[in-house]
């Protein structure tokens, strides 16, 4: 076990409602979720001394802080690369706490991603500049390859070719997520499960991806409170201990379009994250009682099962078919409904669900959950967590 394991815990979670048109500013959504998370933890805003969010977040820590009465911050940072940042926020918080730079750190993400700027519309019409990051899109958008769904579809097609996976195999992830969302009152798709035929009959977005392979778009905010082991001792809830927290960028990494590696059927950055998680936590894939895997698009859930070590390469379709991902299976998946079913909160709502699983408070609580693995955005520089009932 490494130095970072067990030094911090998530002790508060808070979110706004998940909607398609919040009618409020992104700053207000951020503030509402942070206040709710602090209230859940039983911690006053004045005790917060660290804040972490995404580089994409439109409301910086100074605006959230002055709005809700957070006073002095000794640690603040932003994690880059879209949804790949989600678990990275907790990793930064845990690292800061381990290093003694702060002991009460807020991690949050809030946006009007449906009523405001919709990521699914892609990069084509965004202003170009000559920075390396923007100039990279020069290799994609002039050909019409400009949306996340299209980027993932390109990798998925090759994955199907090499491993014989089918659209129905991808669809199983959507069916499981929507089944879990159907019983979650906070989920956008509450009471709206789907069948595999619904998935197959949904319109094409970017072949081989159907509409129901793609996550929804959401307005909302989600916050988490990460504190030191010392501070976690006497709070309202059972702490969800951070026993593994890692980030990963792999060789020849690009933004969801790492098409120039020797192979494109894997997610080597997720392998890098996973190797660290198992090393840090001293736990193995078999020790996990549930998994919250980032599901912006279904195909990469299969790839993650392989990279995290739950099954061999190309075997995810069989692993899923064996029923392991149901609530009574050996690895219940996305018990909140995931981003396909609950909400697309850039992965942060999945971390909150992992905390509920450790507390035993999920609406689809499988059984005793002592350890749960959580992942962040796939195809991008990414991150992951292992949260545990015990340090």
């Amino acid at each position, binding site marked *: 076990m490494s130095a970072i394991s067990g030094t911090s815990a998530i002790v508060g979670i808070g979110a706004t409602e998940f909607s398609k048109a919040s009618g409020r500013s992104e700053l207000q959504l951020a503030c509402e979720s942070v206040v709710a998370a602090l209230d859940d933890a039983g911690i006053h805003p004045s005790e917060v001394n660290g804040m972490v969010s995404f580089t994409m977040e439109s409301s910086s820590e100074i605006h959230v802080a002055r709005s809700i009465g957070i006073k002095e911050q000794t640690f603040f940072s932003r994690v880059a690369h879209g949804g790949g940042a989600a678990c990275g926020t907790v990793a930064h918080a845990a690292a800061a706490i381990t290093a003694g730079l702060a002991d009460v750190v807020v991690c949050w993400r809030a946006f009007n991603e449906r009523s405001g700027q919709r990521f699914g519309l892609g990069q084509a019409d965004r202003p170009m500049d*000559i920075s390396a990051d923007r100039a990279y899109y020069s290799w994609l958008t*002039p050909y019409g390859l400009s949306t996340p769904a299209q980027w993932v579809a390109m990798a998925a097609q090759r994955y199907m*070719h090499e491993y014989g996976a089918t659209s129905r195999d991808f669809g199983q992830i959507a069916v499981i997520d929507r089944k879990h969302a159907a019983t979650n009152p906070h989920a956008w798709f509450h009471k709206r499960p789907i069948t595999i035929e619904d998935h197959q009959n949904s*319109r094409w977005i970017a072949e081989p991806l159907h509409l129901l392979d793609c996550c929804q778009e959401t307005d909302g905010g989600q916050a988490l409170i990460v504190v030191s082991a010392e501070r976690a001792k006497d709070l309202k809830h059972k702490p969800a201990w951070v026993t593994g927290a890692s980030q990963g960028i792999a060789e020849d990494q690009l933004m969801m379009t790492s*098409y120039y590696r020797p192979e494109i059927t894997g997610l080597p950055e997720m392998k890098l994250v996973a190797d660290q998680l198992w090393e840090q936590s001293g736990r193995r894939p078999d020790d996990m009682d549930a998994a919250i895997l980032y599901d912006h698009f279904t195909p990469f859930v299969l790839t993650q099962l392989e990279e995290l070590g739950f099954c061999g390469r190309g075997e995810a379709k069989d692993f899923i078919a064996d029923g392991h991902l149901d609530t009574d299976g050996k690895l219940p998946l996305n018990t909140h409904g995931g981003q396909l079913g609950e909400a697309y909160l850039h992965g942060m709502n999945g971390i909150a669900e992992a905390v509920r699983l450790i507390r035993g408070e999920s609406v689809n609580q499988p059984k005793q959950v002592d350890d749960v693995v959580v992942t962040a955005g796939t195809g991008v520089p990414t991150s992951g967590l292992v949260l545990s009932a015990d340090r």
Partner: protein
Amino acid sequence: MSTDTSYEERLQAFVGREVIARRKGQDAVNQAMIRHWVEAMLDDNPIYTDAEAARATGRNGVVAPVTMTQAWTMRGLKAHLAGTGGGAMSELLALLDEGGYTSVVATDSDFEFHRELEIGDEVDADEVVAAISEEKATGLGIGRFVTTVRTYRDQHDRVVAVQNWRTLRFKPGTGRSAKPAEEEKPRALRPRPAINLDNQFWFDAAKEHRLVIQRCADCGQLRHPPGPACPHCQSFDWDTLEASGEGTVYSYIVAHHPPHPAFEYPLLIAVVELAEGTRLTTNLVGVEPADVTIGMPVRLEWLDADPDLTLPVFRPVTEQEQ
């Protein structure tokens, strides 16, 4: 559309008629108007303002720019506000109105200049109908081109200039722009690449229909997308290799939604592996989505998408060609 023969005859009866009688300009050619004109035109040729300079070119003195010819005969604001001025031109316009050709746009004005005007010259002009076209469907609307000839003369009856003046008289609301928009909207341009110091060479070569691959000048490794340094040996020296244009489909998608106005959907986008070993993102052409397979041999073609953008695209190689 008017098929009324009597209307057509009445209209054509104007051809050859003088519709504006010789009418003298309001002011004789003078230095003040010339000065204002050349200042507005940013024309500092001294022959328009300096008698000495004009004489040095063999002229008698200051001359007016020939392009001012029409200006000397313009009726001015007061006459314009007072109406069309009567006469045959008013009759012709009334007849065009009767046919529904109530809108007008000037289309051509061709001048032939015969002599330069000097200070004190007096200019007049008359206007004769040269032609009235049959009814035509134009982008602006259904209408007729009316061509007149204006002849400008000086006080000695010498021809100064002849102007062929053409207008389109059309029925408002009958143009193509009044039809459903989609047909008329020019296709949007493809998203622009962001050209910077690291990728410009590739897009410049593409404009010349050369597909180049960046190559490390030290270790010879090829790389794409390009970058300033070699990830294998850290060298910053590089040159390029011109690709053979042969490749295979490494992966592909069929894009449907959301549509971008530059493209037709379903849209085939592929990652092609070149014979040289590097891959690039591109479009497939000349093939239906259902016929694309991974591993399919493809060959380079150039797409001149618009004047500023040339892109490599790939077409499947037929068995015969193989």
